[in-house]
């Protein structure tokens, strides 16, 4: 070993300005990292808090007796096998009517909102003249800015008599009405994300298709739409998540009766609306209170699983489209 190699190599001399710039870079990078981790920390803390409140169900003897898993998910003795009546001498805490209600309302809203959102996005991205596009886009996106309480009240006061007369229903508040009102809230979500996905499709695809003699319509339907499929799927998943979690609209428009029925003319009670309706008055720390948090955990698991399934699905679609096994 030569001695020369152990000599310390002097760092390149930096000007003061450059050093300041470096410091600023570091500070900004640190700040951004901190922000990102704050978000993650907040999420973890929320999960921990909600789960902790729900855990009482399993640790507390009273609660275990009042709300066991069999009482939540299996048919019970009595006049009606599945009831949600947590405030009672003998509390009945079946989740089945809540699941059925949530799914019923969400499916109706998706059946309305997905075609509406995707096709209006296709129209705006592919066919609309420029003027019309500049008008349509902000108008549909404005829908997203309407508070859900307002939409819910609108459904209760204005839509309910119309829907009732249109479908000849007995009850003005029902699954259909809630689904329609909910669709109003998720159309802008689906539209915005789909439209972004469609405009992101490279121009060369369109030009190639048109050069081969395809019409505008064929191009949009057979080239652009499939190419944007992953984005559109993501839009639908976002919409679905929003629909499952939407509270105020459902609370005001669905009638919240705990019936187990797939009939769209019947009322429905959703998981999120149940939390909103009961949290204010419940005895804090009681089994009923823990149950409401447990419903929150269930909703969380739903959305989580849904997102997982959706992301793997999107990957599959992408693979099929690009034809590569990457």
């Amino acid at each position: 070993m030569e001695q020369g190699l152990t000599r310390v190599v002097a760092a390149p001399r930096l000007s003061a300005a450059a050093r300041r710039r470096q410091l600023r870079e570091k500070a900004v990078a640190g700040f951004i990292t901190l922000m990102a981790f704050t978000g993650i920390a907040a999420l973890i803390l929320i999960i921990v808090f909600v789960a902790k409140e729900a855990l009482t169900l399993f640790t507390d003897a009273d609660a275990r007796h009042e709300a066991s898993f069999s009482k939540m998910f299996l048919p019970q003795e009595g006049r009606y096998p599945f009831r949600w009546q947590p405030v009672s001498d003998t509390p009945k805490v079946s989740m089945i009517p809540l699941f059925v209600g949530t799914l019923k309302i969400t499916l109706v809203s998706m059946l309305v909102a997905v075609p509406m959102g995707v096709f209006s996005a296709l129209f705006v991205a592919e066919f609309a003249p420029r003027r019309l596009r500049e008008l349509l886009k902000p108008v549909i996106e404005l829908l997203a800015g309407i508070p859900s309480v307002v939409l819910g009240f609108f459904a209760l006061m204005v839509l309910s008599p119309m829907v009732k007369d249109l479908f000849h229903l007995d009850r003005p508040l029902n699954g259909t009405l809630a689904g329609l009102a909910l669709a109003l809230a998720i159309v802008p979500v689906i539209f915005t994300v789909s439209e972004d996905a469609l405009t992101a499709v490279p121009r060369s695809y369109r030009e190639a298709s048109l050069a081969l003699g395809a019409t505008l319509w064929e191009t949009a339907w057979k080239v652009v739409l499939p190419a944007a499929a992953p984005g559109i799927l993501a839009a639908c998943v976002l919409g679905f998540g929003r629909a499952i979690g939407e509270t105020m609209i459902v609370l005001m428009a669905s009638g919240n009766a705990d019936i187990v029925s797939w009939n769209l003319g019947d009322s429905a009670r959703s998981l999120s609306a149940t939390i909103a309706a009961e949290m204010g008055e419940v005895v804090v720390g009681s089994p009923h209170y823990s149950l409401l948090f447990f419903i929150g955990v269930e909703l969380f698991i739903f959305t989580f699983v849904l997102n997982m399934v959706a992301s793997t699905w999107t990957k599959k679609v992408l693979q099929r489209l690009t034809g590569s096994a990457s």
Partner: protein
Amino acid sequence: MKSLLKPLLAVFLLALPAAAQAGTVTIKGSDTMVILGQRWAEAFMKKNPTIKVQVTGGGSGVGLAALQNGTTDIAMSSREMKKAEADKLRARFKVPPVQRSVAKDGVTFYVHQGNPVSALTTEQLMKIYVGDITTWKQVGGADAPIVAYSRENSSGTYVFVKDMVLDGEDFAPAIQTLPGTAAVVNAVSKEKNSLGYGGAAYAEGIKELKVKKGNEEIAPSADNIKSGKYPLARDLFFYLRAEPTGDIKAFIDFALSPEGQAIVTQVGYFPVK
């Protein structure tokens, strides 16, 4: 030991949230009572400009929980405190909580104004709500299904109707629930075959049902509720951690004074005194 206690106590009192600030009284709880509480607070602050009274809603359970963790001085509740809640308060503050009944509310059943039915017995009401009677024809009305509305199942009004009208039985699954009296009133005014209940309300398009007892039909009027003749009246409560003193006592005394009870009548409830 004693010499240590005093500073400790002082520190503890200082550490208490805004509730213990001099000159501020915080009131939280039942949404049924929020407007009443605010009107009392306004009138009280006009008379005592040095004292601030803050009123917020959120629900009876929220108010009672806030009383427990020291973030409110007074909890408004439209239901009686549950034993579990009272036990917790006693365990934490070493004294039993104090209940003051500050107003009365008549629970009224409403129908659409075009409905020919004007009075029902409590038994008929019960049968409708547990699902034994499903059409208006069975109670002397039109041949149409009864669309019955209820309040969400933890509201004080719901518990009251369940105990007093349904004898503790469960509501039928087909009964629809709505958040708040206003929503029930709106829904009833929109639907000609509907039936709903809530606090005394004055609104377009609805009719208050009288309660039939024998040959008599009793309207939910102020006199009938005060005299106890109308069978469906309930108390509205203030709950406190301990016997009130100072500003809190002054406020409660004001609420129960003739002037305070006049405000109760203005808001649409009924005086206790």
